[in-house]
């Protein structure tokens, strides 16, 4: 079980860019992706800013080379998964035993919610093709089929930690010699279902969100997809991998269906478990990509757990959700790509709009973009509903 698993590449599409270089440029330029809703149709259009991918479905379908009428979730997934594969240098996919493990939270809900009004009016109403890909797994298969992946396809749905758990499962598939390569991450498009759901929880900020700021009042939803390409030790020897996935852990907070425990039990256990697997001491972590949603509850629980584990040596940290919004099932995948790239290029990402120190915490997030750091180890946190908490550690060697 000790075989090393490497990150050979990554792809991201998000509210701050249609590919990885565009996203990095947005961080460099301090250009967050939140704006008034342009593509999602909702009565809350003028109330809640969101970080939409700045392209309509026709444009995305062109980029994905897929039909325009399929779920936006699949289009986003396809674009990021293809970028990830192309960045890996692996070339012909049919030469390898490949797995595709993708997280998402609501599958083809963007189409189902268009189907539903007609269906509610008449059980024979609504166009069936709109619900043909409602299932989370169906979204994954649309992309796997397009990429030509058959050895292993799987979908994980653990709310906001789905993408991170996809990396864990993918790494285990490689360690157990089931496949040699796994494209792992997650995807989610904005839907009225999730927007209204988060609105009922009263955790949406009507302004651009302020993660880890004392005045924070909630999160902004985003959309996108992010995947890494995980490869076995033997394949990595033929490539120039970005870094290694050295540790990961998943724990359950077992406190409340949606809220985090005040002392961040699950968060702490996930981070501690990931460090233990990687064999890294807390002070060796150079940067943490925070879950950092900007809700009162998450940031204080996550912060307290970090304080408990890392004090007094706090690494640089930031929430890239201050740029991309909370992309739910995609966030673990998107932030895994950002974290892996942080190791490769020594990047510390900025936390936008941080002004006021949280009174509960002795540390503050980084507020400017910088490169050239010697980051040996980077941690990425993803915590979600259902108490699902996951942490990943990326290491230089």
């Amino acid at each position, binding site marked *: *079980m000790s075989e090393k698993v490497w990150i050979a590449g990554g792809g991201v599409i998000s509210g701050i860019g249609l590919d990885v270089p565009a996203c990095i440029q947005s961080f460099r330029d301090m250009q967050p992706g939140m704006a008034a809703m342009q593509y999602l149709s*909702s*009565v*809350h259009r003028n109330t809640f800013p969101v970080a939409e991918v700045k392209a309509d479905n026709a444009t995305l379908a062109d980029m994905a080379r897929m039909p325009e009428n399929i779920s936006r979730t699949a289009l986003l997934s396809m674009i990021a998964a293809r970028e990830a594969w192309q960045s890996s240098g692996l070339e012909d996919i049919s030469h390898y035993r490949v797995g595709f493990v993708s997280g998402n*939270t609501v*599958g083809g809900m963007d189409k189902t*919610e268009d189907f*539903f*009004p007609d*269906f*509610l009016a008449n*059980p*024979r109403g609504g166009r*069936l093709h709109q*619900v*043909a890909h409602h*299932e*989370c*797994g*169906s979204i994954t298969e649309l992309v*796997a*089929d397009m990429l030509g992946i*058959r050895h*292993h*396809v*799987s*979908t*994980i*749905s*653990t*709310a906001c930690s789905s993408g991170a*758990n996809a990396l864990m*499962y993918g790494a*285990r*598939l490689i*360690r*157990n010699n*089931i496949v040699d390569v796994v494209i792992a991450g997650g995807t989610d498009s904005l839907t*009225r*279902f999730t927007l*209204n*759901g988060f609105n*009922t*929880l009263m955790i949406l900020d009507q302004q651009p969100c302020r993660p880890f700021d004392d005045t924070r009042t909630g999160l902004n939803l985003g959309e996108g997809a992010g995947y890494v390409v995980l490869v076995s030790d033997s394949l990595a020897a033929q490539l120039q991998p970005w870094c290694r996935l050295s540790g990961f852990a*998943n*724990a*359950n*907070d*077992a*406190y*409340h*269906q*949606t809220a985090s425990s005040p002392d961040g*039990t*699950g968060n702490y*256990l996930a981070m501690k478990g990931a460090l233990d697997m990687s064999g890294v001491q807390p002070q060796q972590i150079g940067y943490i990509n925070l879950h950092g949603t900007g809700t009162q509850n998450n940031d204080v629980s996550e912060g307290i757990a970090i304080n408990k584990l890392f004090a007094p040596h706090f690494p640089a940290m930031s929430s890239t959700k201050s740029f991309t919004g909370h992309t739910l099932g995609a966030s673990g995948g998107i932030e895994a790509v950002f974290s892996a790239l942080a190791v490769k290029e020594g990047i510390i990402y900025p936390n936008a709009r941080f002004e006021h120190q949280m009174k509960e915490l002795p540390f503050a997030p980084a507020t400017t973009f910088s490169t050239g750091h010697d980051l040996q180890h980077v941690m990425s946190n993803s915590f*979600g*509903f*259902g*108490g699902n908490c996951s942490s990943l550690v990326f290491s230089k060697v």
Partner: protein
Amino acid sequence: MNIYINGTGCISPQDTAQGGPLLAAPREYEQVRLATVDPDYKQWIDVKQIRRMSRVVKMGVAAANLSLEAAGITLPDAIITGTAYGCLDDTGVFLTKMVNQQEEMLTPTAFIQSTHNTVAGQIALLLGCNGYNNTFVHRGFSFENALLDAIMILKEGTAKHILAGGMDEITNYSHQVLSRFGIYKKAPVKTMELLNSPDTGTIAGEGAAFFALGATKDPGTVAELTGVSTLYKPLWEGEVIGHIMKFLEEHRCTPADIDLLVTGRNGDIDQDEMYEEVAAALFPDHAEASFKHLCGEYPTAAAFGLWMANAIIAEQAVPEAAVFYGRAPQKINRILLYNHHQGTHHSFVLLTAC
């Protein structure tokens, strides 16, 4: 390293929750939509919570508890679930209100309970389990991937006892929509005659089955979970046959070592043809048992099939209601469970008596 099934629990359209001999009094239905026989959920869940919980959460929590009780475990090290559809009922409730109320005045309960990881999260919450917690939602592989994840983690040695299960529910909405895709029989059939049906279409089912898996066996353990494998979109039956041969080989056995074949025949004449081909090619004289006439067709029905296979090993007999073909040998040592969902998702589970 061996992985053992130390306890099982099942909520299904049969009386599987109450113990006793396997399918002693099978329930026969004459309808295209089967519903679970619900046990008294108060055994495991607080009355106030029961009212708020959807059926899939209740059946999942109950089956999980039954399997832990059977294994004598109060707190597993990990909880892994598989569900293709997730929490359809709460999803439907929230969607309906969202549409009817034009996105205004909505309440959070249905949304909170609509996420696919609700069952795994609720089990963790009720048990106070801080361990690994994961939910697979991949159509006809949801349950199998949960089993595979559990096996890989047990082999790593980071967990000793893992609770793994599969569950799906039917709702009025889901049944209406799935019916429009033409996957069910047009007219009710007697379930005990389903597998001899001369036409296409199957019957809808639902249920939850959980397994307490461990790296060590208990005194009451009857079966070892020898292997799990999946095959996605095979191009033709030869690929399925080749996959089974390779799967058996990996576990150092041949078709001759299989004492009983358990198949996911569902009464759709087109879909059942694959089972015919596989049986004819590899298991021409083998006894065969089936289960979807008992639990109905749904993406995680293989969990019911595995529950039944484990019980057959425990009793060393195939109950009359499950027999499809032939007579199993005196000693049932190895069972191969072969299921496919809609011809695209094929899965194989090998059980060995211990």
